[in-house]
C-alpha cells in the first residue's frame, strides 16, 4: 500500500522520533511510505483558539498537499480529529479527506494488532480526549500494546480524565491546567510504570513536560515508538546513537544540515 504520512508541524520540529518510528513501522509492515515535503500544519491550533480565517487557509493548504493521496496517516489523534470533524465545519468542500490516526489505521485499515514489536518496559496508556471522544479509538491502542513482546501493560486509573493540555488552555488557564496534570501524574505514578504512552505528542508534551520538571523518572513516549521497537535493540540504544550523531553535527555549519 502507498501511504502518505502527515507528521504534524509539532512533531516535525519537536518530536521527530515519532514520525521516524511511524515510517519504520509502516515500512516493516511492507508498505511504501511517502512524505510530501510541502506539508506544514493542519490548522488545529488556529481553529481551536478562534482564528478562523487563518485556520481555513491552513486547512485548504493541507487539502491541496494531500489531494492526490488515497491514504494519509498521522501519529496525532487531535490532528486527525481536526481534519475529520473541524474541516467540514470550516468548508463543506474540505470534508472526506482520507486521514487516519496511526493506531486506527493499523487496526481498522490494515487489520493488524500484532505488529511484531518488542519493548521491555512497564508502560501505561493515557487515552487522549480527541482519540477517545472525537475519533472513538476505544481500545484499539490497547489491543496493539497487548501484543507487544516483553511489554508490561499497567492500567491507568481514571484514564479517561483530561490531562489539562487543551492547546492554548495550557497557557491561558495555566493554573487550572497544572492542577489537572498534577492529578494525571499522580495516577501515572500509581501504576509504577517507566513510561506513559499516548496517540498524540501534544498531550504527551504536556504530561512529559510536567514529569520532566518534577524529575519523576517516568518518560512520556509516543505509542508509535513502542510499536516500532524490535527485539534485539538495546533499550535506548537508538536515542543514544542519535545523540552521538547530533553531537557530531554540532561542529558543522547549519547549512550542511
Amino acid at each position, binding site marked *: 500500500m502507498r501511504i502518505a504520512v502527515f507528521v504534524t508541524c509539532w512533531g516535525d520540529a519537536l518530536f*521527530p522520533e515519532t514520525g521516524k518510528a511511524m515510517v519504520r513501522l509502516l515500512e516493516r509492515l511492507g508498505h511504501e511510505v511517502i512524505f510530501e515535503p*510541502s506539508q506544514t500544519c493542519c490548522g488545529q491550533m488556529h481553529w481551536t483558539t478562534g482564528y478562523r480565517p487563518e485556520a481555513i487557509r491552513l486547512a485548504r493548504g493541507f487539502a491541496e498537499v494531500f489531494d492526490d493521496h488515497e491514504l494519509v496517516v498521522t501519529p496525532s489523534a487531535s490532528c486527525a480529529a481536526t481534519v475529520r470533524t473541524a474541516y467540514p465545519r470550516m468548508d463543506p468542500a474540505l470534508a472526506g479527506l482520507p486521514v487516519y490516526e496511526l493506531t486506527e489505521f493499523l487496526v481498522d485499515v490494515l487489520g493488524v494488532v500484532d505488529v511484531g514489536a518488542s519493548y521491555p518496559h512497564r508502560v501505561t496508556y493515557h487515552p487522549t480526549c480527541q482519540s477517545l471522544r472525537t475519533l472513538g479509538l476505544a481500545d484499539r491502542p490497547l489491543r496493539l500494546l497487548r501484543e507487544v513482546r516483553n511489554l508490561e501493560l499497567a492500567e491507568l486509573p481514571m484514564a479517561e480524565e483530561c490531562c*489539562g*493540555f487543551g492547546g492554548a488552555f495550557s497557557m491561558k488557564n*495555566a493554573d487550572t491546567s*497544572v492542577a489537572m496534570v498534577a492529578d494525571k501524574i499522580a495516577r501515572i505514578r500509581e501504576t509504577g510504570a517507566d513510561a506513559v504512552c499516548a496517540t498524540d505528542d501534544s498531550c504527551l508534551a504536556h504530561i512529559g513536560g510536567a514529569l*520532566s520538571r518534577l524529575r519523576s523518572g517516568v518518560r512520556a513516549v509516543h505509542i508509535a515508538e513502542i510499536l516500532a521497537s524490535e527485539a534485539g535493540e538495546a533499550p535506548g540504544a537508538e536515542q543514544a546513537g542519535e545523540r552521538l550523531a547530533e553531537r557530531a553535527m554540532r561542529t558543522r555549519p547549519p547549512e550542511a544540515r
Partner: protein
Amino acid sequence: MKFSDAARPQLSDHRSRRRRRQAGAEARARRAEAAAGLPDWERLREAGAAIRERTLRDLGTHLEELEVSVIEEDGRVHWARDAAEAKRIITSLVGGETDVGLVRSDVTDEIGLKSRETGPYTKAAVVGAGFLVAETGTLVVADPGESLTFPGTLIAVAGIEDTVPAWSDLEVLLQLLPRSAVGRRMHPAVSFRTGGFDLVLLDNGRTRVLADETGRSALRCIHCSACSDVCPIYERTGPRPYGPGRAGPIGAVLTPQLRGVEAPLEASLPFASTLCGACADVCPVKIDIPGLLVHLRGEVVESRRNRPVPAPELLLMRGLAWSMGDRRRYEHTLMSRARWARLLARDGRIRRLPGLFGKWTDARDLPAPPRQSFRAWWRRRR
C-alpha cells in the same frame, strides 16, 4: 475578572476541591448507572435533542400558544426584557407583601432573587419554573419537597426557552432530566399546576442567542448540570470563576452569548475549557458544547481583531499562520526557531521561555528541538 484570575484562589482551597472531587465521582457513577438502566438511552437523548431543537426553531409560535393557554386557565403572562424588568414585575405583583417565599431555579438566580423558604404565614411565592407546557399552560417544577398547591399569590418565573410544546414532549424530557441531574429514574416529586398563576417570561439576551444559528443550541439546556458533574475544569475551580451566570461548561457557552463577549469575564469563558468533550458525551439533549466553545472563541477573536493596538497573541497567531502558509517559509521558521530554542535549553530541556510561552514553562519543561527535524531526516535518508 477573567476566569483564570478568578480560578486561582479556588484552586488553593483544598477542602472544596476534595469535596467536589468526591461529589463529582459519586454523581458520575450514579448517572452512568441510571443511564445504563435504560436500554435505549441514546435514542432517548436523540429524541430529547430533536424536541428541544424543534421547540427553539419555532419558539415564537409556542410562546403565543403558551400565553393563550395560561390566560384561558385564569392566569396572567408578563414579558420581561431583562432581569431588572422581571424584578420590577415581581415586586409589583407581590404588592408590598414582605413575606415572600422562593423556590429557586437557574432563572431566579439569573435575575438575582434571594432564597427564602415558604413559611406558614407566607402570602406570596415566587417559583422558578422547570418547564411550561404550551398546549395546556401548565407549570412543571421538578424539585423535591415543594408543591404548587400554594393558595396565595403564585408567581412563576421562566426563561422563554423553558417552553415545551406538548405533554408528549414533556414525557421524554422528564425521563432524561432526573437521570442526568441526580442519577435517578424519577425525581422524588414533580409538581404540576395549570392556571391561577402569574407567569413572568424572561428574555434577558435569549432572543440574541436564538438569532445565532450555531449558538442557539445552547438554549436546548434543561438545567440538569450533568456537564458540570463531569467537567475536569469545574471540578478544580468550582462555580465562582464562571461569574454571576450559570456555572460549568454550559455557563461557559451561555454567559458570553447572553451578555456579549466584550467584557473580560465573558471574553475569557469560552477559553475556560480543554475541549475534552466529557460534557458533550453526557448532555441529555446533546448540546455540542466543545463545538460551541470553538465557535465563541472565534467571536471573541473577531471582536478584538480591529483594535488600534493589536494584541501580542493576534500578532503571534497571524505570524504563525503566515509562516505555515508555504513550504519555504515553514522550513525557514522551523530552522530558525529551533535554533533559538536550543540556545535556551540545558541538558535537552527548556526550563524558561520568554513572552506568552512563559506560562508553559512556569510549571512544565519543553524538550529542546532536536538538531534534525523529521523532514531533515527524511531528506538525508533518501
